[in-house]
């Protein structure tokens, strides 16, 4: 206990030494905290970025390309390219998405013209939202060839019928039976109310390929029918004038018409114009527009295996539906129409931000949040919907949607269609999802990487049995390779070497820009730790040197008094260790306190001291100081006892 007695008698010296070591330790601990903090920051920032590789759109070669032989560049093998990518070592994960259909209880489906009939495009609505039932009276029948929506020419017939009533049609479609005053707007002559420029639409055109068992056309002029199929409006060609007037020409008839485009007036005037007259004009014009679009509607039948699609009736169609004959219509067809008219496309994903649209900023979050890791891992029942869908149905964040899933299949087409929700496709899985995010994205645009505003996004694991869904590798929208951040260029080089040049396009959300700072962040952390360590080494050397000087006479006296070397060494070491322990503990505590204060001030939570790092740092410092102390204690115990006073003084 001799060395401790020395401490007790003159406590200022060891106290100062301890203070010196405490300060050095605290600097080292700050360096270590900073380094580990920057690692955390690096991970935190990197996790926000998703680097993806996706298939571009490989269009079928044109005739000119085939003729010139240049189509080879588009002759690609998605499976081969995918396999090569998986072998590259750069792929962190793959988001194999899957597309389902779902009846969303109590909702209205988004058809392409739901908000603005001018945006109507049946390609986006087929073959689910446009499922409809009409009551019609046949006025014209013609035998002949007909073309299906897929362009096939088959034996069939044309039927023109008068629409008696719309029995079932999606809300998103214009009300083609809206019998209101029409408006005629003639340039230079102003507006004329009550005078229709075209007749009210009241007819429907049907193309059929199904005949009765005896080979006859199932429709006869003058008879009334309930018909079921996929409804399609004619497109309207429109042009704008600088006054906001829209002039147009019906594709089917070539007739000209005019009406006001409210939106054009609204926007071109640079803001909202409160004008009752204008609102009235707009309302009337919109009705006219709808009227036009209802004129001469084309009509196609579902496939032959489907339910009965026409029924002749007499009297009121309601009576027909109520009769035994109408059981199938009442119990199967109309509910099926209702399901499809309230259905939506559902995309199951393990990483929504790996989708091209969200990754590149073509789409974005408008409200709420994206799914987090826990949502994906646990398969939480949460969903994201489009802003259009939310507004159309009055949904907001926190609302719950009940989804009844159908495995409708999907197509790798420009419009990415899914099939209709049919009984045989029903998965018998009904789940309730909470809306946590509302996104905006191209509403109805064509492209293999684009999806429509009807799409609900959910975590893949939230659907039971989702692991068994097949991988749709060639479907560009449904497959994204998630690359390790910062490996975009290396991946592309690898793919080029693997003979798959241009097979993938990579996007990294600007990670390459952030990477510059992140690298510096880590390097700075390392440098800071090095500074701390170098200060600790110097301070420790200084402190131990001074202590050795102080202990030397005592150690020598002890040895002269007959104490064994090991006893002197042990006692000196324990005295040193006391200072070391105090220094390590208080130094790290001081660093934790100081750094917590700094990080609180700078709002850098990631840099806040981590208890594990702090304890580790204290232990490491203590071990280092302890070893140094052992060295010093050994030196003290080995002091030569026979040297001259002058030489002895060398340690003073």
């Amino acid at each position, binding site marked *: 206990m001799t060395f401790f007695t020395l401490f007790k008698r003159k406590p200022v010296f060891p106290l*100062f030494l301890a*203070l010196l070591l405490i300060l*050095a330790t605290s*600097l080292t601990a*700050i360096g270590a905290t*900073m380094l580990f903090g*920057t690692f955390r*920051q690096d991970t935190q920032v990197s996790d*926000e*970025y998703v680097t993806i590789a996706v298939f*571009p*759109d490989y269009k079928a070669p*044109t005739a000119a390309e085939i003729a010139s032989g240049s189509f080879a560049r588009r002759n690609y093998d998605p499976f081969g390219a995918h396999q090569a990518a998986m072998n590259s070592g750069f792929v962190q994960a793959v988001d194999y998405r899957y597309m389902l259909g779902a009846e969303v209880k109590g909702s209205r489906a988004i058809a392409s013209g739901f*908000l*603005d009939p*001018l*945006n109507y495009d049946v390609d986006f609505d087929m073959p689910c939202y446009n499922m409809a039932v009409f009551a019609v009276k046949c006025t014209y029948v013609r035998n002949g060839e007909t073309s299906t929506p897929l362009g096939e020419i088959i034996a069939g017939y044309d039927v023109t019928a008068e629409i008696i009533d719309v029995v079932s049609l999606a809300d998103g479609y214009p009300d083609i039976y809206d019998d209101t005053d029409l408006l005629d707007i003639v340039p230079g002559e102003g507006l004329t109310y009550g005078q229709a420029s075209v007749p009210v639409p009241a007819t429907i055109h049907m193309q059929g390929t199904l005949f009765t068992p005896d080979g006859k056309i199932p429709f006869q002029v003058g008879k009334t029918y309930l018909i079921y199929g996929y409804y399609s409006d004619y497109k309207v*060609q429109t*042009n*704008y004038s*600088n006054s906001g007037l829209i002039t147009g*020409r019906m594709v089917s008839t070539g007739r000209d018409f005019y009406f006001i485009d409210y939106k*054009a007036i609204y926007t*071109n005037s640079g*803001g*909202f114009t409160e004008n009752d007259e204008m609102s009235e004009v707009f309302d009337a014009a919109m009705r006219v527009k709808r009227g036009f679009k209802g004129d001469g509607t084309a009509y196609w039948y579902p496939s032959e295996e489907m339910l009965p699609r026409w029924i002749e009736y007499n009297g009121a169609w309601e009576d027909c539906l109520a009769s035994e004959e109408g059981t199938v219509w009442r119990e199967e067809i109309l509910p099926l129409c209702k399901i499809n008219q309230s259905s939506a496309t559902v995309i199951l994903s393990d990483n929504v931000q790996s989708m091209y649209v969200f990754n590149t*900023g*073509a789409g*974005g979050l*408008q409200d709420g949040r994206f799914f987090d890791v826990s949502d994906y891992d646990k398969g939480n029942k949460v969903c994201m919907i489009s*802003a259009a869908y*939310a*507004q159309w149905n009055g949904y907001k964040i926190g609302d719950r949607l009940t989804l009844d899933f159908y495995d409708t299949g999907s197509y790798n087409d420009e419009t990415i269609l899914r099939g209709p929700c049919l009984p045989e496709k029903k998965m018998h899985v009904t789940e309730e999802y909470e809306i946590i995010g509302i996104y*905006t994205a*191209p*509403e*109805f*645009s064509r*492209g293999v*990487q684009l999806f429509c505003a009807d799409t609900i996004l959910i975590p893949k694991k939230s659907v039971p049995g989702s692991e068994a869904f097949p991988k749709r590798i060639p479907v560009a929208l449904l497959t994204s390779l998630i690359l390790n951040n910062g490996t975009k260029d290396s991946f592309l080089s690898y793919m080029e070497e693997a003979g798959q040049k241009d097979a993938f*396009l990579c996007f990294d959300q*600007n990670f390459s*820009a*952030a990477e*510059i*700072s992140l690298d*510096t*962040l880590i390097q*700075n952390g390392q*440098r800071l730790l090095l*500074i701390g360590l*170098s*200060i600790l080494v*110097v301070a420790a050397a200084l402190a131990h040197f*001074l202590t050795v000087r102080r202990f030397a006479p005592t150690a020598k006296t002890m040895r002269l008094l007959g104490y064994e070397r090991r006893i002197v060494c042990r006692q000196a070491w324990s005295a040193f260790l006391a200072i070391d322990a105090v220094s390590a503990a208080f130094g790290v505590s001081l660093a934790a306190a100081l750094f917590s204060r*700094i*990080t609180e001030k*700078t*709002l850098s939570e990631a*840099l806040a001291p981590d208890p594990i790092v702090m304890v580790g740092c204290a232990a490491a410092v203590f071990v280092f100081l302890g070893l140094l102390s052992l060295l010093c204690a050994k030196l003290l115990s080995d002091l030569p006892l026979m040297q001259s006073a002058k030489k002895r003084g060398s340690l003073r």
Partner: protein
Amino acid sequence: MSMLQVTVSAMMRRKRWTILLVLIALIETGAAMVLCMLTERQETALEETMNNTTITCVITDADGLNQDNLRMATGFVDLLCGRKHEKGYFQDEYVKNVRAKAGMKLFEPQNYHLVCLLTLDSDYALTAVGGGSMTLFDGWDASVFMSDQNVCVVPEGFPADGESIEVDNGNFTVELRIIGTHTGPADNIYCPFHTMDFHDGMSYLVNADSCSFEIKDVRRLDEAKESLYEVFAKPDPNDRSVLRPAFGVRINDEIYQSTLETLKGNLRTLHLLVPVLLLIGGIVGFFASYLSTRSRLKEYAVMRCLGMRRGEVLCFALSEQLMIALVGGILGFAVGIAINGTFSLRMLLYGLGGIAAFLIGTALSVSRITWINVMQLMKTEE
């Protein structure tokens, strides 16, 4: 002997102490300079990150429901492109790479669309991911789409009779010279965005279907946002205010903002570490110098006995510390420059700060020798 000689001689007599103190001054100065270098490196990296960051903005309707069927007056596009400078309306100070597309169905040639583009990537179908491409004839390049020339690019295999085609959209007829072919949608004929302006300066004969752009300088993001939100709304389907703009702009800056916040937090921490380092340096200097002078109290007492005044003794002790700080500082600068590989005025200031902190610490420490009781000290020594 001059004061300097006395000081140097005293320092030389106590080599070990002198070396230790010089070492402390060196570490203090060097550490301050390295910390400065770390800060500068981080700032430079942040600058580079900002220079290389692209923030994409997409025009939507005011509710944020629609971004590809906008039917927006092309005046808004002109505003973004800076074509309305003479009218005092412009946003090109804040935005760049404006992409806009406007499409219209044509009566002639029948079944074709005329698509007006501001840049080639304004149409998804012509982007790399869209799979389409454009081949312009010799003498033409993509910059033609920024102009208002009456030219067009037709689909491959387009049945053209001569070098130009006449397009009719029902309202007007324009003759367009064919300057290339494309592999995008087969029913699209592409022309420069302003071709249909009729050069009347009003430019709303054609309405833009979609429009996007990038922030010119992300450092001025807040300014840019403020300016953009004067013209465009922040998309919000729940906002029913009558006077809000007709179109909205979605600024995709979430990831950038979050990254920037992290990087700036780190930088702020580095900045705050400087005073901490200086404080620690000052305290270390104080203690080291305290220990150094403690063992020399008798020496100072003798000086006092020889008739030196308190001030002179203090001056002597201080000059010794100053000398140590000077030597340590110079070595520290050398080490700092060697580690950093560069030198800047800011580093010099940080280094000087380090020396100053050390000096303040040592000055406080040596000042106590002016309070020593010579009689008591000498008596104790006897």
